[in-house]
Structures are given as structure tokens and as C-alpha cells.
């Protein structure tokens, strides 16, 4: 059958044709929305890519290489202490997977071979909800309060949801898979505290390079602001030493990578961005050619960048087209948004939770979308509700969860997430 194979391209071509046939070019609202999309994309490029996303990719890459999943999983085995199991599973999402294709097998494993339903559900929820990249970008774009509320909310949430699932189904014993857990043995190459310092320095660079100008011109925050590039430079220098002494990069490579950045920083102290960029390029060059774990570090970071940047660009363009920049309108009129999710009523929060639960957000795209919604009058409470219900759940991943733990438990899990996001949103909305 000819059409059996060819119907898909036909549908695509016809669909795209129809979109362009009826494209409302020339209508003021649409033209304006296209401009909004471009403005928003430029704003992201100017403000968030170099100083925020690039270091965040390096951190995510480092986590993927230097934090082994098996070292976390040993706290989630069948004989694990329950209290520790809940604690570990609720926070481990922040240092493990960035995409749900790694979260789901780990969830299934904890459920069927390891600590059981409660910790598995806690992990399932916290995994996508609190990964580092998402928290960093949320705090940077949507404000520190929402960023912190998202992280803290997600951790508390995952523990409560895990415990409730465990209590509802405590009578039920599932047949454990009678397979041994196969875990790659972590290779210990340096003591833990050296890794901790390495991560702390990278987080320090990220935080201080992005230190935003406080409103007051005196006080501690302002002092930190005026020294932010000096602190960033000091942290970068320390990172170079860490890479030299503990990570085995040769000294002439470190020298070649750091000297151009240092020289530019001294020659053009008004343009720290240039020096920062040169430093990043230097680091990329030496790590990508180093071999071993340093090269692995770069290739993981590069992998995240390749995977996430196109999605984020697409998400920013769509969000700009539909919702516009803060203070401007896109295609969707502001009144619609403020009617549906404005204020802090129970309906606004519930609507945001349900919409978030079923919608699929590609990694990080929830941030520009929320930015657009908030700019159009979405309340703080519903915004948090959407952040808590959104990235952890989507229709496709509900189907996978269902195949692991059955329809009934999946429905209970989804309901729990929606109800709790609504409540959390209302509390947060009443506070801020």
C-alpha cells in the first residue's frame, strides 16, 4: 500500500501549507507578536546564554561524569534505611538526570528492585522537578523567590507524595524482580572533598558572575555586587589550580587557557564578558582534547548544550509569539491570561496545576512560557503551581509510569501532584 507509508509526510506537508496559506501576516496583532518573539529571543541571548547557561552546562556535564548514579542508588536498594531512602530520593534529582529518559528507568528500578513504591515515587517526582539547570534558570529569569520556592517546594512535595503513596498502598506487596541490580562500579580517582571544592568553585563562578545589581547603593549586597568580577576571577583562578593539581591537566595547557582570559581582563576591565568568553573557550579547548575524564566532562557538557539549546530557542520563540515580553502582548490577549490564572483564587491555582500536569514541557522551556504568562497577569501562586505540576508530569510520561505501576496508582499519583500543587500555589500566592 502506497499511502500506508506516505500518509505522515502528506499530513505534515498539508498542515504546513495550510498554516502558511492562512498566515495572518499584516494583521497588527500578529506582526507585533512576531516582533515580540524576536525581542524575547534577543533578550535571552544577551542576558542568559553566556554568563548563566554556559557555566550551567559545564556544571551539569560535571555532575553527569563525576557523580555516579550507582553511588546514589546504594541508598535506595531493597535493604535501605527508609528515612535515608526518602531523603536521598527527594534531593538526588537535583544532582542526577536532566531528562526524563534517564529518570524513568531509575524509577522503575527503585520500585521493582529497590526501596519500594514510596521512595520510587519521591524520586519520580523530584527528578525532573529540581534538576540544577531548571532551578538556576528559574531563579535567574523569574526571580529568586520563585526559584527557591520551586526547589524547596519540590523537595518537600516529593517526600509527602512518596509517603502518601506508601500509606495508601502499604498492604500491597509487589513481586520484586528477582534480578540482581547491575550497577557500574564507581571508579574512585580522588577524595570526595576535592570533588566538593571543584563543584563549589563552579557554582561560585555561576552565582557571582550573575550577581544582579541591588537597588540600594550601600550594604552587603552592593559591596558584593561591586566586587563581583574580582570574586568571579578569583574563583576561576582557583578552578584552574584545582584542574591542574587534582584533575591532572598539564600545566602548560592550563597556562595557555587562562593567560588570554587574564590578559583581556586586565586590559579591558570594563568588558568582563569578553574575558569570560575567552576563558570559557580556553577551558573548552583544553578539556575537549585532554582525553580521559576531562574530555568526558566536556563531551557531556557539550551534549547538554546540543540537546537543550535548540529546545530552549524554540520555546522562547513560541512563548514570545503567544505571550510577548513582560509588559507587551503577543497573540493571546492579556485578559484571557489574567482571567484564567490571575490573582490567587483556588480556580486559578487548580487550572494552572491541571494545565501544567498534562502539558509537555521540553527541558527548561517552562521558564520562558511562565515568564510570558506572568507578564500577562498570571499570579505568583498559580505560577508556582504550574512549576510544581508541570515539568514532573506530562501525558507521554504518564503512559510510561502506567506501564510500570498500573493504572490505579498512576491516577492516584497524578491526582496527588495536582492537589498538592494547587495548595502550594495558594500558600505561596498568599505570602508573596
Amino acid at each position, binding site marked *: 500500500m502506497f499511502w500506508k507509508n506516505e500518509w505522515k509526510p502528506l499530513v505534515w506537508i498539508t498542515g504546513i501549507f495550510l498554516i502558511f496559506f492562512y498566515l495572518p501576516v499584516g494583521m497588527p496583532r500578529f506582526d507585533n507578536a512576531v516582533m515580540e518573539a524576536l525581542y524575547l529571543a534577543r533578550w535571552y541571548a544577551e542576558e542568559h546564554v553566556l554568563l548563566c547557561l554556559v557555566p550551567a552546562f559545564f556544571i551539569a556535564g560535571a555532575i553527569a561524569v563525576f557523580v555516579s*548514579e550507582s553511588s546514589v542508588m546504594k541508598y535506595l536498594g531493597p535493604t535501605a534505611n527508609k528515612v535515608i531512602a526518602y531523603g536521598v530520593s527527594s534531593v538526588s534529582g537535583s544532582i542526577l538526570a536532566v531528562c526524563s529518559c*534517564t529518570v524513568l528507568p531509575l524509577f*522503575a528500578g527503585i520500585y521493582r528492585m529497590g526501596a519500594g513504591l514510596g521512595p520510587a515515587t519521591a524520586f519520580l517526582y523530584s527528578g525532573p522537578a529540581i534538576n540544577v539547570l531548571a532551578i538556576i534558570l528559574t531563579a535567574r529569569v523569574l526571580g529568586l523567590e520563585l526559584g527557591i520556592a520551586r526547589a524547596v517546594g519540590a523537595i518537600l512535595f516529593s517526600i509527602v507524595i512518596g509517603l502518601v503513596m506508601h500509606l495508601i498502598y502499604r498492604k500491597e506487596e509487589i513481586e520484586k524482580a528477582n534480578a540482581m541490580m547491575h550497577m557500574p562500579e564507581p571508579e574512585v580517582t580522588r577524595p570526595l572533598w576535592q570533588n566538593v571544592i571543584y563543584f563549589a568553585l563552579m557554582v561560585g563562578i555561576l552565582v557571582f558572575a550573575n550577581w544582579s545589581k541591588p537597588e540600594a547603593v550601600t550594604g552587603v549586597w552592593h559591596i558584593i555586587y561591586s566586587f563581583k568580577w574580582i570574586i568571579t576571577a578569583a574563583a576561576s583562578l582557583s578552578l584552574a589550580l584545582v584542574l591542574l593539581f587534582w584533575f591532572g591537566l598539564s600545566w602548560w595547557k592550563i597556562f595557555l587557557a587562562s593567560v588570554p582570559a587574564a590578559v583581556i581582563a586586565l586590559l579591558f576591565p570594563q568588558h568582563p564578558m569578553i574575558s569570560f568568553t575567552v576563558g570559557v573557550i580556553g577551558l573548552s579547548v583544553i578539556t575537549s582534547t585532554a582525553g580521559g575524564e576531562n574530555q568526558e566532562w566536556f563531551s557531556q557538557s557539550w551534549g547538554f548544550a546540543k540537546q537543550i539549546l535548540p529546545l530552549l530557542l524554540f520555546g522562547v520563540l513560541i512563548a514570545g509569539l503567544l505571550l510577548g515580553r513582560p509588559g507587551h502582548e503577543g497573540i493571546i490577549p492579556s485578559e484571557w491570561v489574567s482571567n484564567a490564572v490571575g490573582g490567587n483564587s483556588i480556580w486559578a491555582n487548580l487550572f494552572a496545576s491541571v494545565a501544567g500536569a498534562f502539558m509537555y514541557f521540553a527541558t527548561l522551556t517552562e521558564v520562558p512560557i511562565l515568564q510570558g504568562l506572568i507578564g500577562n497577569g498570571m499570579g505568583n501562586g498559580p505560577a508556582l503551581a504550574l512549576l510544581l505540576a508541570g515539568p514532573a508530569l506530562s501525558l507521554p510520561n504518564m503512559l510510561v509510569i502506567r506501564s510500570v505501576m498500573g493504572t490505579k496508582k498512576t491516577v492516584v499519583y497524578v491526582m496527588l501532584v495536582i492537589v498538592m500543587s494547587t495548595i502550594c500555589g495558594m500558600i505561596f500566592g498568599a505570602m508573596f
Partner: protein
Amino acid sequence: MKKIQILGTGCAKCNKLQEISEQAAKELGIAYEVEKVKELNKIMDFGVMITPALVVDGEVKVAGKVPSLEEVKKMIQE
């Protein structure tokens, strides 16, 4: 006849592992068949939680990373 199974839910790394494994088997010039295991419950039956994983004749050889071509050759030959 070697039976090579690739466990993974369909992410980029899983496809990479499949490519490498087929190339390794071809270069070794042995008879083989490749099967992709995508269903989570079946992956669990092997005891694997971190995908992708490579299984040769029912035995898990590697989980959680994509090994190099040379390493895969050794794993298939053993």
C-alpha cells in the same frame, strides 16, 4: 550465533550503543542478531536501571554508559 540486546528507552545514547555494537560485530565477522529492548519492565528483568545497557547472550556487559568500539569487541568475544 551471538545474541546482542540493546536495552534503552530510545534516547540518543541507546542508538549510539546499537550502532557501535553492530559495527563491532561486523568487524569481528561473527554471526549475530541484534534486538532492541525498549519496554521498561523487560529492562528491569535484566536488573538494569541505568540505560543504555548492552547484553550479550543474556549477560549484562555494561550499563549506564556507551563504551568504545574496542571495549564492545571484547565484550562480544568473551
